[in-house]
């Protein structure tokens, strides 16, 4: 039997010894984390610091405390419009593209390998196409030359060209469509890979146990086995849904009519790169970051209940 002091000695010692024993792990972590710290953490800390200052990028930042945040919450009407639009975006494109990724990955997984390869490529292609979404600008162009307008007019649905991109009522819808088009990216691939990873024997066991069609199979067998991929997909989609900006700026113009396509990130871009009020832009970024973190936390709780991760 050990005396009490001897037990205490062993417990303290073991933290240090655990670190030393795990030195191989730390060595392997080092390259990534050094680079990560330098190029990602440091800039984020820098942005946090800048959010408490008044910084116009030409002079040394002047510390102003919480003034930026006060202005953001009490004085900025445009931010409210941006927040509203971003919220609509996130609520619509987030779940839709997440479920679209899941459903298409599941549907594609049902086919034979050759078709599967072709269709995976077809669905993934938009997200790696870089700036190709400007083509949607041509399709949705607001004059008679726009393909969609011409198509609808020749079929008789409308009499005059619809100003898709400059009409404040339709522009948000257009951007949502294009965003969903582009969003079948890494989450989609992750689901496809996860679906192929599910143990085949589980399906047969489920069939023996009474599962009768594809849908039940999906809900009771496939999804619970795909826990990590579901989480990953959710994190990616939330980040993407809240940070829509380049599509808005390129298609809807900057600024867009009536600020109809203004999102929080374009708002940040506006204050940071156009008006040179970097301190304020950083403050808005911080708020956005906290928002995304909380949404992410909630979604992760939900998903860990659906799938047993």
């Amino acid at each position: 039997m050990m005396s009490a002091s001897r037990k205490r000695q062993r417990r303290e010692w073991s933290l240090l010894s655990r670190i030393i024993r795990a030195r191989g792990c730390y060595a392997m972590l080092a390259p990534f984390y050094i680079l990560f710290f330098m190029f990602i953490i440091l800039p984020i800390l820098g942005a946090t610091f800048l959010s408490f200052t008044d910084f116009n990028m030409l002079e040394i930042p002047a510390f102003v405390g919480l003034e930026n945040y006060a202005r953001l919450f009490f004085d900025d009407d445009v931010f409210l419009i941006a927040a509203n639009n971003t919220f609509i975006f996130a609520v619509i494109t987030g779940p839709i593209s997440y479920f679209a990724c899941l459903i298409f990955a599941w549907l594609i997984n049902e086919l034979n390998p050759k078709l599967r390869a072709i269709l995976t490529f077809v669905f993934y292609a938009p997200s790696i196409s870089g700036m190709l979404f400007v083509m949607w600008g041509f399709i949705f162009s607001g004059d008679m030359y726009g393909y969609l307008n011409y198509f609808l007019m020749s079929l008789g649905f409308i009499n005059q060209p619809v100003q898709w991109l400059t009409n404040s009522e339709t522009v948000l819808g257009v951007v949502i469509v294009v965003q969903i088009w582009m969003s079948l990216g890494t989450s989609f691939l992750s689901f496809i890979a996860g679906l192929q990873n599910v143990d085949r024997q589980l399906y047969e066991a489920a069939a023996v146990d009474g599962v009768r069609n594809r849908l039940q199979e999906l809900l009771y067998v496939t999804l619970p086995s795909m826990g990590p991929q579901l989480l990953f997909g959710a994190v990616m989609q939330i980040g993407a849904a809240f940070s829509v900006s380049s599509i808005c700026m390129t298609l809807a113009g900057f600024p867009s009519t009536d600020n109809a396509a203004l999102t929080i990130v374009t708002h940040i871009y506006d204050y940071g790169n156009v008006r040179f009020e970097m301190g304020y832009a950083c403050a808005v970024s911080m708020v956005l970051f906290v928002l995304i973190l909380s949404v992410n936390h909630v979604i992760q709780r939900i998903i860990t209940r659906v799938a047993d991760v």
Partner: protein
Amino acid sequence: MPKQQGGRHLGVNRSLAGDILVFAVLACFGAFMLLPFIYAIAQSVKPIEEIFVFPPRFLANHPTTENYRMLSHLTDSLWIPFSRYAANSIFVTVVGTLLNLIVASMAAFPLAKYKFPGSGFLFNIVVMALLFTGPVTALPQYIVVAKTQLINTPWAVILPTVALPLGLFLMKNFMTQINDAMLEAARIDGAGIFRVFVSICMPLVKPASFTLVIFSFQSLWNSTGGAYVYEEELKLLPTILNQIATAGMSRVGPGAAAAVLMMIPSFLIFVLLQSRIIETMAFSGIKG
């Protein structure tokens, strides 16, 4: 019991009608997905008279390779030879992708399979960093790159993207699903952590590796280097192609041709690796 019709073998719980419905739905949405690509390719083979015609036509009536020829003519008469831009882009993309894969896998393995002080914390800050977006990190990042004297070298484009949180996340999630028995067996046989990583873990996570390669490749290939390189000799391919594409009305044809050419390597890599992903999955490790 699986249904069998004639010589056709269907899987468990599958019917022919279900299969056809699946295919029809996918074909519809696939067409939607492909629309801009078909448009870009069509634009790039239209002669200039057809690009601005009314009523607007989607496909080309008289396809020609004139736009591609004009593109090569334009790129021949540049101050810096076109091959320099291409070489820069290839270097940045290949090196960056390899580094990305190695660094992310090396970091993901201990996080996935080992418990050590700080493992939870380290992973969580990566997840949090994944969520931070916006143009505001650009400025502090530029300062970091400048202070480390990396400005104006290809490393300025590569290094910031190597520590990709997405890479770590992806690899760690896949590695968590590896069966521990194999790793234990290797460890009992005396392998140190690095040996276990190289010999056992990496071959098993090939699908994730290829996904990471695809993602990293297309991100680096499409990057314009931004403000980090200002010497003309070090600039990357998208910079010069964008200049051609936005040079005005008379360049719409070559611009579309340039866009199509930029798409091709990303697509090629994806198509090549995708079949490997599927093939690898057919022979996975421990069964049952």
